[in-house]
């Protein structure tokens, strides 16, 4: 006898707009998103922003303190490292590595994850069995150990890091997509498409995918923060990009030997990692709250 409110079908696009509006309302998350954008701009326009050549060594400025400390100089606002290279410039260039690797790994992994997850969730059968087994096996490795093991075998290098991280990362979007696909494939509009004789490919990519994209995007942003920390960790261990390329993790590692006499060499790159990762985390949490009501509390 209770009166059921009929659920009105909601257009995907207006839903997206409403979600974005909710996201904008969350001031902290929105501010964080701006910080992330600033980091991206910094990475893109590094050559124009950086006060110095990040690779130019000048032994006369070795371990020079930041500008506000005694002996500091505006030429090196955040001081210089053990080779007299400008720390600020290296941090600005380092953003390129962090953001590029983070984005590349997430894009590669999410693409693979979406395809594998759709295939497993929609086609079921042996495809699902194979993919799910593979996922189970890869989940059997602690993430960092898997990446370290791969890097140890493949050797350092930009491409290798992306591979080493993406090898396991795709499992996460894959599981999300598979679960969503399983739930979605029985829905009416999918049934209808199938009844109309749409191909499996069409249904997967045109009917199902657009409707499960929200959680995938949310997961991807959260994971990006994680990937950036992982890259920094690998670089810290010396398993990251090849020096002298500026990478934040490697910069922290380099400064470690000087921490007793020149704290700034390690501290600022670490702060950069913290700031970027924190901003991504806050923004992605806002995104999650706005886009995925199941997570909201």
């Amino acid at each position, binding site marked *: 006898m209770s009166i059921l409110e009929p659920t009105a079908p909601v257009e995907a696009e207006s839903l997206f707009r409403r979600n974005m509006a909710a996201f904008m309302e969350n001031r902290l998350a929105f501010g964080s998103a701006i910080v992330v954008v600033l980091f991206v701009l910094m990475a893109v326009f590094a050559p124009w922003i950086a006060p110095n050549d990040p690779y130019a*060594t000048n032994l*006369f400025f*070795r371990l020079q303190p930041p500008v506000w400390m005694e002996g500091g100089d505006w030429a090196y606002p955040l001081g210089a490292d*053990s080779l007299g290279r400008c720390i600020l410039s290296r941090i600005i260039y380092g953003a390129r590595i962090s953001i590029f690797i983070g984005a590349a790994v997430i894009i590669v992994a999410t693409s693979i994850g979406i395809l594998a997850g759709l295939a497993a969730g929609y086609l079921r059968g042996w495809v699902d069995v194979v993919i799910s087994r593979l996922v189970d096996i890869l989940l059997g490795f602690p993430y960092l150990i898997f990446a370290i093991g791969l890097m140890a075998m493949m050797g350092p290098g930009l491409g290798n890091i992306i591979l080493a991280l993406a090898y396991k990362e795709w499992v996460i979007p894959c599981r999300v997509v598979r679960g969503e696909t399983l739930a979605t494939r029985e829905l009416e509009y999918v049934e209808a498409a199938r009844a109309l004789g749409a191909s499996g490919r069409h249904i997967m990519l045109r009917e199902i995918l657009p409707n499960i994209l929200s959680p995938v995007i949310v997961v991807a942003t959260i994971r990006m923060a994680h990937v950036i920390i992982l890259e920094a960790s690998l670089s810290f261990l*010396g398993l990251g990009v*090849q020096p*002298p390329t500026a990478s934040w993790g490697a910069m922290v590692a380099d400064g470690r030997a000087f921490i*007793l*006499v*020149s704290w700034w060499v390690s501290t600022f790159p670490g702060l950069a990692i913290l700031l970027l990762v924190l901003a991504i985390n806050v923004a992605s949490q806002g995104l999650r709250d706005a886009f995925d009501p199941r997570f909201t509390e």
Partner: protein
Amino acid sequence: MKAIHRTLVASAIAFGMAPSVQAQELIVGFTRDADTLDPANHRNRETETIIRNIYDGVLTRSSDMQIHPEVAESFTQVSATVYDFTIRPGITFHDGSALTVEDVKFTLDRVVLEGGMGGGQSSPRASLMGPVESIEILDESTLRITLSEPWPLLPAMLPHQQIVSQAHVEAIGADGMATQAMGAGPFRLAEWRRGDSVILERFDAYYGGATGIPEAGPACVERVIFQVIPESASRVAALLSGDVHLINELPPHSMNQVNNSPNAQVMTVNGTRSFFLALNNEGEIFNDVRVRQAVAHAIDRDLIIDRILSGTATPIDGILSPDAFGKNHDLPAYDYNPERARALLAEAGYPDGITVTLDTEGALRDTAEAIASLLTNAGITTRVQVGESTLLTQKWRTQGGPKEGDIYLTSWGNSTLDPFDIFVPTHRTNDRGNAAGYSNPELDALLDEAAVELDRARRGEMYQQAEAMVNADLPYVYLWVPQDIYGVSTRLSNWSPSPDSRINLHRACLD
């Protein structure tokens, strides 16, 4: 929660620190753990440094690099290839058994014989013994070593072998030797906490060590701990806080901090490792001596030594350390002169300069980057490529195989400070350390001759001549010999660093 944290911190304050360090416990903050405690089964300096406090050798070195009999009472060179050693009576191993001439023979046989370690295994230290033909017992106190060819280095190299007990080795086997050390040295092994520390205790029945060095009897401190602290900043911090009393590999940039602290000081000693740039003499660019000279003129060694090494290195113009036997002290220096470098390049047909890659391993990155920027300034555009040492070894030390690459920043150790040990491997045609791919038949002949020359003065002259040759030919750009830098607690006395990086703690005392 807060309360718990407070309790933790409070208890840390109360019990974490200094009070636990007793007066007679000498703690060394050491870069790395021993690989093994078997004196015959490793090729690692740090491992030997630890082992050397447990085991004594037939001969030893004092910190001024003089050779002294240790387990031996004396030794004589009978002929160019025959040495006799008189083993000191009354020495006991840590288990109380007597050290006999049989034990000495067993020890050396274990190293030099094919399969001498048992189980078909040969010792990786065999090459440190040179061309040994036989080891014989002449009587109950005399041992004779016969070489297959003259090798004047034998006495200088013998300190690298430590005497084990035959009975002990036979009882526990080669595997047991890796962890159960039992020698005749000033300290006996108390415990080895792998990856963390090696704990040694004073051997009260110690005979007193080498005769040439002032007699000391048993060690001064009751206990020695080699505490593994790989991180250099942590090692310094531990020294400054008094947690440890001696650290090795003190980073040069921390010297002031240590010297300014009330409870520690810096001690340096000229090392035995020569640093140099190997130029690929087989390659198209560097087969021209003018290009090689251009590199030498492009590098401001004094600047790098001053800025990166805090002045703790001595520049060299030949391969040998200034302290080495046979050093030629009259070599002309290639001064820092970028204009001259450019001119030489132009002369060699590179008016627009050249572009090269500089290989090095991670530990030398700072230096490599600095060198690269200096070279680039002088028209030699240089990119640093850091690789792992094992791969770089394969790439550069090809022993005659084809070689790729331009410049390799590397070093060669010479713990004996005898030229033979560094000159031959790095400069003789296709020898194991000849990263430059240098080949000079004249030099080869001279080195071969010097190796077997028994007249010490004549031999020294030959090496001086050899150094003059390579100084002119410049297959390598010779850089410097860095000092070994130690941080030492002011409580520590009677210890001084040794160029061969051994840390002999027999006589060291803590107040």
